[in-house]
């Protein structure tokens, strides 16, 4: 379950019963490289390696446990503590506001989520509140038609607030409402203001941040801005079927003090999975 760099470093600890400082140093260095290549935030990698090194050198391995197992356990525990709680998905009436950077996968994921709730027996409706991107309504409508989900939008209208108000009224018979929004980033003040308004107007019960698995060091600052604006309570990582490791998600989770709700693993509506911390961590280290 571990990348070759880490495997070799761990080998050096195999069979030992006493902590070897040189071997621990080497392991921590290899771990740092693995985490950096996985796009974990640089400062977070440094903090993590400090605490892992400290624990590895100071904590006695439990009776009967070799040094190698002990250190591996510490690495694992430290990473799991960063993952936050595996976020709960409520299977009842709710309104979900989707937010995230341009191109992160919000529209596709909105349709995937609609499919998920539909399969759980919940009447679900979708609102296209993206008034900016050409073809946004067509895109979402096309996806929703594939699964027979009502999709509310007002092509040609440029007032997202109005669309959300009207959409909520129109879709009132549904238990789950998911609101797709246009992509935006931390420096676009007018768009940050918009999502603050949409959050209020929609009375959203959940505000989910959609982030691309390949997002690099920007993850922390972007997540922070979204969280300051609308209190994100869940993170979704998309495009995990590529080769990116999703390290940015760790920052998104720690900045929003929330957890990872779902993983996007492909372009079709069925490509949505519940988050599995073990799988995520071994992929991160691999």
């Amino acid at each position: 379950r571990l990348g070759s760099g880490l495997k070799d470093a761990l080998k050096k600890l195999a069979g030992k019963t006493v902590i070897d400082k040189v071997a621990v140093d080497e392991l921590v260095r290899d771990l740092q490289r693995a985490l950096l290549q996985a796009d974990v935030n640089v400062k977070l990698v440094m903090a993590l390696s400090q605490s892992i090194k400290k624990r590895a050198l100071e904590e006695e391995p439990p009776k009967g446990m070799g040094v190698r197992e002990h250190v591996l356990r510490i690495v694992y525990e430290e990473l799991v503590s960063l993952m936050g709680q595996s976020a709960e998905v409520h299977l009842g009436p709710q309104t979900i506001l989707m937010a995230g950077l341009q191109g992160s996968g919000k529209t596709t994921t909105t349709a995937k989520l609609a499919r998920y709730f539909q399969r759980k027996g919940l009447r679900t409706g979708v609102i296209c509140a993206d008034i900016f991107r050409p073809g946004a309504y067509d895109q979402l409508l096309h996806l929703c038609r594939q699964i027979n989900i009502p999709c509310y939008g007002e092509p040609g209208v440029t007032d997202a607030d109005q669309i959300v108000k009207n959409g909520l009224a129109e879709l009132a018979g549904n238990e789950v409402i998911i609101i797709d929004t246009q992509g935006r980033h931390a420096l676009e003040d007018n768009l940050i203001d918009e999502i603050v308004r949409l959050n209020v107007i929609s009375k959203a019960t959940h505000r989910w941040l959609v982030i691309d698995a390949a997002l690099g060091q920007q993850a922390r600052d972007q997540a922070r801005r979204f969280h300051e604006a609308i209190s994100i309570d869940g993170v979704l990582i998309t495009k995990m079927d590529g080769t990116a490791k999703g390290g940015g998600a760790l920052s998104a989770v720690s900045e929003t003090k929330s957890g990872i709700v779902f993983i996007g693993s492909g372009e079709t509506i069925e490509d949505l999975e519940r988050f599995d911390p073990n799988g995520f961590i071994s992929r991160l280290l691999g």
Partner: protein
Amino acid sequence: LVLTEKDIADSLEELELILLENDVALSAVDAIVGTIRHDLTGTHRKIGSSIDAVVEKTLKHALRDVLGEGFDLTGYIDSHDRPVRVLFTGVNGTGKTTTVAKVAAYLKEHGYSVVIGSGDTFRAGANEQMKTHADRVGVKVIRHQHGADPSAVLFDAVEYARAHKIDVVLADTAGRFHNRANLMNQLEKIRRVMKPDLVVYVDEAVAGNDAVIRADEFNAAVGTDAVVLTKADMDTKGGAAISIVHTIGKPIMFLGVGQGYGDIIPFSPDRIVDDLVG
């Protein structure tokens, strides 16, 4: 004063962290810092110049070396037979379609005639998105129905350009991942059929270490002549530019700096280097 490896270690380590924090991929940082360490060790430092300043100056020089001078698109068009065929490639969501529209607007502004090939026949809303952009920019777009063969669409776009004596064909393609063999094969077929003069790879400035892997894979699969780095307006220092160019050694043609048709600037290394090391 001869510089030893120990003298420059702290300075290099600091710069290493700055590069990493600004999205320069680990492999690129390793290589660049390694080169600087090798080049500086054993050299002479002028009295009065700080080690930090020497290392910083050497780094800026190394980064400029990596980045090169960009790619002059209009210069290329002027010196080649028309229609010049440009194929845009890249993974999902990086800004290819928007970039095609921006480049169309840019070329139109510079006096060239353009036709767009709506080569994403797969994704929901792709044809509508490209058509709306093309109409707003005021260029002809060739498209088939959803689900059609992208090679056929782009072949038609080239034929249209020939028949109407159009200067440039800009061919959009569907986003795809490099680890999907069938999709990369499809892209290779598109390339064989449309025979582009230029293959332009599009990735985003906020992509992390995966930018290296995917740039490499796309270059190996269909070749890359130039790169467009989008979303450089996202508060990022553009380190991904270094990662990508260092990996495939191809120049950056444009930086995308926003979602409007005018949000595109011909690449010059100074801005990125000064932002990163400034």
